[in-house]
């Protein structure tokens, strides 16, 4: 048993350096992952399991503490992924790339790691006997858990910053501005979950559109003609990486698209009332800032319209 403990402690020391890098792998975005040295995920899990035991022993938790049984349970879960239990050699398990795993397997590993690190942190990492210890095993285990905690914090921060970038895509200077009617509609729409920030803290991709467009252009008998139309519909923001002006998405990968009902008045012309005469109904679609609409489909005054998304008069249209 003592030999086993010695071996385990030796394993902590040896694995710590590799484990720190593995922790980085576990919790950083993919593009950073590729730049890191390749290390074993199993060595990280080994170290965490053994390090947890070292810290719990050093912390001398009181009898009846709720932490040890939970730490044992989560250690057992994590140990299933460690090298010894799965029989994976360190050389063969040289990469931990969680995104390569099936989502359920990845989720199980991340959840087990997260629970174990939080439990050990909560009960051990502020205890004077652990903080002040100079014993090599305790120092190595303490540093490992602090480092893994910091990496988890970095991962959480990366998510927050990604969410903020998405907010900027929807609300920032490159996003379409709202007129006063749209401000009211979108304020009211916050009552619906689909228009509120999502569960991971990013913005809803949806926005209501209700605008008056006095400068659609159509060709009639070979001549250009201005047509006024109203639009009511939904805008969808492409907030993902690579889309929109912030990411240089260009025409092929714009920041947003819209779809909805278009209405034009009976007569063509700029700044017309869309309700004058018999309205011509149709649809509009926007791809980024380019907008197309068709009104009066099949009728004598059918028009195929083209315009560009921008606000001509603040708050109005």
């Amino acid at each position, binding site marked *: 048993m003592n030999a086993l403990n010695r071996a385990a402690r030796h394993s902590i020391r040896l694995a710590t350096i590799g484990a720190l890098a593995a922790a980085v792998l576990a919790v950083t975005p993919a593009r950073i992952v590729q730049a890191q040295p390749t290390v074993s995920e199993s060595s990280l899990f080994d170290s965490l399991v053994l390090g947890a035991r070292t810290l719990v022993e050093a912390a001398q938790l009181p009898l009846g503490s709720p932490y040890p049984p939970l730490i044992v349970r989560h250690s057992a879960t994590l140990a299933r992924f460690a090298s010894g239990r799965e029989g994976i050699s360190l050389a063969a398990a040289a990469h931990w790339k969680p995104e390569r795993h099936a989502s359920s397997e990845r989720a199980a590993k991340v959840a087990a790691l997260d629970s174990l690190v939080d439990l050990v942190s909560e009960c051990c990492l502020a205890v004077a006997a652990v903080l002040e210890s100079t014993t090599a095993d305790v120092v190595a285990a303490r540093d490992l858990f602090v480092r893994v905690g910091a990496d988890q*914090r970095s991962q959480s921060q990366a998510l927050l910053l990604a969410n*903020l970038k998405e907010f900027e895509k929807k609300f920032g200077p490159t996003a379409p501005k709202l007129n006063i009617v749209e401000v009211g509609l979108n*304020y009211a729409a916050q009552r619906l979950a689909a228009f509120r920030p999502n569960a991971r803290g990013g913005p809803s991709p949806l926005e209501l559109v209700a605008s008056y467009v006095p400068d659609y252009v159509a060709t009639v008998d070979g001549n250009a003609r201005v047509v006024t139309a109203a639009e009511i519909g939904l805008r969808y923001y492409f907030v993902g990486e690579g889309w929109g002006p912030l990411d240089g998405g260009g025409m092929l990968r714009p920041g947003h698209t819209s779809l909805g009902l278009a209405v034009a008045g009976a007569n063509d012309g700029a700044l017309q009332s869309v309700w004058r005469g018999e309205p011509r109904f149709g649809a509009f679609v926007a791809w980024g800032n380019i907008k197309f609409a068709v009104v009066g489909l099949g009728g004598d005054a059918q028009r195929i319209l083209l315009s560009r998304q921008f606000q001509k008069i603040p708050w109005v249209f």
Partner: protein
Amino acid sequence: MSYTPVIRDWPADRAILIVHGIGNTQTGGGEEIEAAVRAALGPDADSIAIYQLYYDGINDWFAGKTQAAALISKLVGKFRQSEQNQALADTLADYAGDVLWPVMSVSARVAVRSAYIAQLQQVVNDGVRCGHAPAQQRLTIITHSLGCFHTYEALHEISRQSSYKLQPGTHHVRFENVISMASPVQLIRSVAGAMGAAVPDRTTLTTLSDAGLSLPEQKRLDGVVVPSAKRWISIAGDLDPVGGYALRKRLAWAYADIPGQLSLIDQESAVTIANGDDLRTALHASLRTGKAPAIAPNDPHSWTAYVGRHADDIKGWVA
């Protein structure tokens, strides 16, 4: 402009986060208040990592999207008769907008809170990088005006949610001091409370909690309750309406009286003459120069004035 947290190297185990209220501090600025804090700390300041949180840029996204700031400016424009009033109108427009977003827009609320939490994560991880585990870090937040509201919301959020890895009990991220100056938390609670259902998704605003205002804390698995701040200090001037006072009278509906906080009330002077010595000096100068005595109104909400009045306190708390 994309939001990026401020990164610092820690000279020792202490850090201060300065959280602004209103003003144009999108990507920089705030030198005046940092200088005031450094002056209060004296030589100690060199051994402290000092951060500032800039979130005005995020408010500006929402202001630009709806052009509300310009609209508010126009509404208050009729009161402009001089350059001074112009500045006042601009300030009102900024302030109205900055208060408006977190209350009326769930997205703005979440976005500013995210920026705040991302900055806190950076502070803690900078400390770890420089060799100080969270349990060994000595953190202080100094905040003013609307920054107090965002601090209140952010610290409650990180105490509740484990995913940020900033909980006081589990991750040992505890603040030695949260020094809140002229906090409008109760003012916002009263006004937003009166707005009722007009405030969307009230559950994501801790300020409106049915349980009332409270200091953020976390209950650990073993039942131990760990407060987020070891010392939560609230300072208000008795002429500062944002802090809940009007003409030296406390307004119960506006003063943030949070159970457990250390409350300090400053005696403010309405003009630059605070006592008989100041008056004598002004009169002597007036007689010497033949000009009218230099008596001007004081800004009761001035952050640098708050810091100046409590320079010794701040030095002691942060020490």
